[in-house]
C-alpha cells in the first residue's frame, strides 16, 4: 500500500486540538508525523487545498438491515453509503431479522462485515431476547462476541424492573446501554408529533412526555445502578433539560441528536409525505432550538444519523401505514454544517468533534482521531461546495430521504479507511 501525503488541507483534529492548514501523512495504514524523503517520492499525493481534512466520521446509530431485510439495504451497500458520507466507523442497530440477540447472529453479521464492508462496521446486541422486552438477552456472551453496546432499538424496554436488571448486568461487562426513549402506552398508533400540526392534520400524536418519562427513568436507573445509558435521537425540549440536570449531578448518561431533528419540524408533514415520517417524530421549532442549545453546551454529546433505509414501495403509502425512518449517511455532514455551522454559528472544529472524537469516545472505539499511530481513517470535504442530492443516484438500495433533490452545501471529496481510499468523491472502491 503506497504512503499517502495529503497536502495543504485545513486539518481539524479535535482530539489533538489541531485546526490549521497543513499536511497529513499516512504510512502502512497509520497516521505518521512525517514521511521520509524516499517515501514522499513514492507517496500518493492528495491535494487538500480549500478542503478540510478531519478524522473519518463516526456514526453510532445506523440500520444496515442484514440479515433479514436486505431488499432495503445490506452491509455492503450500507457501508458504501457510509464511505460516501465521510464515515469510516459505524455502529449497526440489532433490529435485524432475526434480531441480534444471540452470538450466532452476531457472528454471522461479523462474517458479512469482514467479507463485504468497505468501512469499519461494528455491531450492537439486544438488551432482551428478540427485543421483546420480556427476558434478558445473553448480554455477557454478546459482549464476548464483540458487541460495542446493547439496545432494543425502537422497542424501548417498557418494564422498569427489567431495564434496571439489564443495567446492573451490563455494568459487569462495562457495556453501554443505548435506549430509544418511548413510553409505548402513550404512543399507541401515533405517527407524528402531538401538537398544533397533528391537530390540524387529524394524525395521531406522539407527545413529548412519552420521551421525557423514559429519559427520566433512565437517568434514575443510571444513578441507581452506575451503568451508562445513552439516549438515542433526543427530540424533545424537556428531555434536553432533564438530561442537562442529570449531567449536572454527575449521572453517567449521554445523548445524541440526528441531523433531521435539528433541520426539520413537524410542519414538514403538512403534505402527508411519508418521507418525513420517523420515530421519534419531527417536533416543533422550540424543540429544535433546545436540541441545538443542548449540542452547544454539551448536554447532547453527539450527532448520529439513525440511517434507516426503506424501499420506495414500502414508503409509498398512506402516511399512517408507511414505515418510520429515513436515509442519513450521505447527507449528514452537509445538513449538520447547514444547521450548526451556518445557521447557529458553531465552529467547524465543534461540528467535527460532534461527529468524530465524541461518538468514538462514547463507545470507547478506536476512531475519531488523527493522532500519530492511530489508524488512518480520514475524511476530506469541501465545506463550501454546493451540490444537489439525488437519492436514487446514491449508494443505498433505498431512496427515502427528505433531501432527495435538494441543494446541499458541503461535499465529501475523499474517504480513507486504514490508509486506503474507499471513496474518491464519485465512486466507492468496492471490496
Amino acid at each position, binding site marked *: 500500500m503506497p504512503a499517502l501525503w495529503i497536502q495543504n488541507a485545513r486539518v481539524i483534529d479535535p482530539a489533538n486540538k489541531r485546526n490549521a492548514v497543513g499536511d497529513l501523512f499516512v504510512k502502512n495504514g497509520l497516521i505518521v508525523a512525517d514521511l521520509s524523503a524516499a517515501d514522499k517520492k513514492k507517496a500518493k499525493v492528495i491535494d487538500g487545498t480549500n478542503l478540510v481534512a478531519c478524522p473519518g466520521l463516526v456514526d453510532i446509530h445506523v440500520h444496515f438491515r442484514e440479515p433479514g431485510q436486505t431488499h432495503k439495504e445490506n452491509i455492503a451497500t450500507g457501508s458504501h453509503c457510509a464511505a460516501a458520507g465521510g464515515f469510516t466507523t459505524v455502529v449497526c442497530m440489532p433490529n435485524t431479522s432475526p434480531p441480534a440477540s444471540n452470538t450466532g447472529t452476531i457472528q454471522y453479521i461479523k462474517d458479512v462485515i469482514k467479507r463485504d464492508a468497505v468501512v469499519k462496521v461494528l455491531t450492537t446486541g439486544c438488551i432482551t431476547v428478540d427485543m421483546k422486552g420480556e427476558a434478558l438477552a445473553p448480554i455477557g456472551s454478546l459482549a464476548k462476541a464483540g458487541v460495542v453496546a446493547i439496545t432494543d432499538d425502537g422497542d424501548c424496554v417498557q418494564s422498569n424492573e427489567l431495564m434496571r436488571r439489564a443495567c446492573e448486568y451490563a455494568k459487569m461487562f462495562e457495556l453501554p446501554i443505548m435506549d430509544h426513549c418511548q413510553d409505548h402506552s402513550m404512543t399507541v398508533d401515533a405517527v407524528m408529533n402531538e401538537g398544533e400540526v397533528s391537530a*390540524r392534520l387529524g*394524525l395521531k400524536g406522539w407527545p413529548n412526555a412519552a420521551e421525557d418519562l423514559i429519559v427520566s427513568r433512565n437517568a434514575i436507573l443510571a444513578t441507581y445502578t452506575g451503568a451508562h445509558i445513552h439516549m438515542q435521537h433526543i427530540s424533545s425540549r424537556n428531555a434536553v433539560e432533564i438530561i442537562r440536570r442529570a449531567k449536572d449531578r454527575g449521572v453517567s448518561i449521554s445523548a445524541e441528536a440526528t441531523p433531521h431533528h435539528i433541520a426539520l419540524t413537524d410542519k414538514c408533514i403538512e403534505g402527508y409525505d411519508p418521507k418525513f415520517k420517523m420515530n421519534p417524530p419531527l417536533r416543533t421549532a422550540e424543540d429544535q432550538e433546545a436540541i441545538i442549545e443542548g449540542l452547544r453546551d454539551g448536554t447532547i454529546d453527539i450527532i448520529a444519523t439513525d440511517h434507516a433505509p426503506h424501499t420506495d414501495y414500502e414508503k*409509498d403509502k*398512506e402516511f399512517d401505514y408507511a414505515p418510520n425512518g429515513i436515509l442519513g449517511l450521505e447527507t449528514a455532514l452537509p445538513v449538520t454544517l447547514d444547521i450548526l455551522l451556518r445557521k447557529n454559528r458553531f465552529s467547524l472544529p465543534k461540528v467535527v468533534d460532534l461527529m468524530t472524537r465524541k461518538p468514538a469516545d462514547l463507545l470507547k472505539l478506536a476512531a475519531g482521531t488523527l493522532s500519530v499511530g492511530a489508524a488512518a481513517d480520514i475524511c476530506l470535504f469541501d465545506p463550501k461546495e454546493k451540490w444537489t442530492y439525488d437519492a436514487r443516484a446514491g449508494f443505498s438500495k433505498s431512496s427515502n430521504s427528505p433531501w432527495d433533490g435538494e441543494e446541499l452545501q458541503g461535499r465529501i471529496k475523499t474517504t480513507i479507511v486504514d490508509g486506503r481510499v474507499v471513496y474518491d468523491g464519485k465512486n466507492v472502491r468496492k471490496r
Partner: protein
Amino acid sequence: MSWNRRHLLTLEELSLAELDQIHATAASFKKILTRSVKKVPALRGKTIVNLFLEPSTRTRMAFDMAAKRLSADTISLDAKSSSTTKGESLRDTAQNIEALQADMIVVRHSAPGSPLYLSKILGIPVINAGDGAHEHPTQGLLDTFTMRERLGSLKGRRVVILGDILYSRVARSNIQALKTFGADVTLVGPSTLVPKHLEALGVTVSHDLRSALADAEVVMLLRIQHERQNAGMFPSIGEYTSMFGLNQQRAAWLHPNAIIMHPGPINRGVEIDSELADGPRSVILDQVTNGIAVRMAVLYLCAGGQPEYVTPTG
C-alpha cells in the same frame, strides 16, 4: 367565476367564493329533489366509483344517490370486496379503478391524507368522503348549507361544536368552512377530547358548557364513541352525559332561535336527549337531505360542470 378544481380534498383550501359556488349549485340541485322525476342528465355516461375502505352508511348512500340523481353510473367497493384485503396497496387499487375507465373516485379511508395521496397519482377527480380524523368536506358543506338556509349569513354567528373534537373529521371540516364564512366558533367538551392545542385551528376552546352555549345560534353535537372511554378519554358514558350531554335545561341557555345539529349517527340519551333530537330546533334530518344536494353539486363541479348561477356571499 368558474369552478377550477378537479378534486375536493379539504375545505381548508377553499375560498369564500368557492364555498358560495358549491352552495349555490347545491341550492339549484335541491329543487330537483322535490320533483316527481328526481333526475337530470348532467353526468350521463360518467362512472363514479365509491371506494369506501371504512364503514359508512349515510355518506355512502348520499353519494350514491347524488350520483344517480345526476344520471351517473356508480360502483361501490368496500374494504371487504376490494383487493386491499389481499394485501394490495391503495395505489394499486386506485390505479386499477382508473384503468377500468372510471371517471371519478369518491374515497373514504381511515388514514388522514389518503385522498390527497390519490389525487397526486390519479388523473381522475378524487372526492374526499372522510379521511380519518382529518376532514369530511362534503359534511362541512352540507352543515354550513343547512345553517345558511336557517340563519342566512354566517358572519359573526356564534357556533358551538360539542363533543369528541380530537378525533372528528366533521369538526375539522366545519371549522374550516365556518372560519371562511366568518362565524365565531367555540369547541367544547372534556379536555381529553378537546385539547388546548386545537386553538391552532383559529377557534375558542372551552370546557365550560354553560358559558359556551350562552346565546349560541348553532350547536353541533358529535357522536361519543364507546371506544374513547375504553381508551381512558373520559370516565364513563354516564359521566359524559352528566357533564356534556345536551338536555332541555341546557338547551335553554342557547339563543332563542338556535338550531341543533348532529352529523349522525345519534346516540340518543348520550350526547343529546331524544326530545331535542326530534324537536323543532333540530335540523338533523334537513342535514341528511341537504347532503344529497351538496354532493350532487360537488360531483357535478369536479366533473367539469360549471355553476348555473352564484348567489351573493352570505
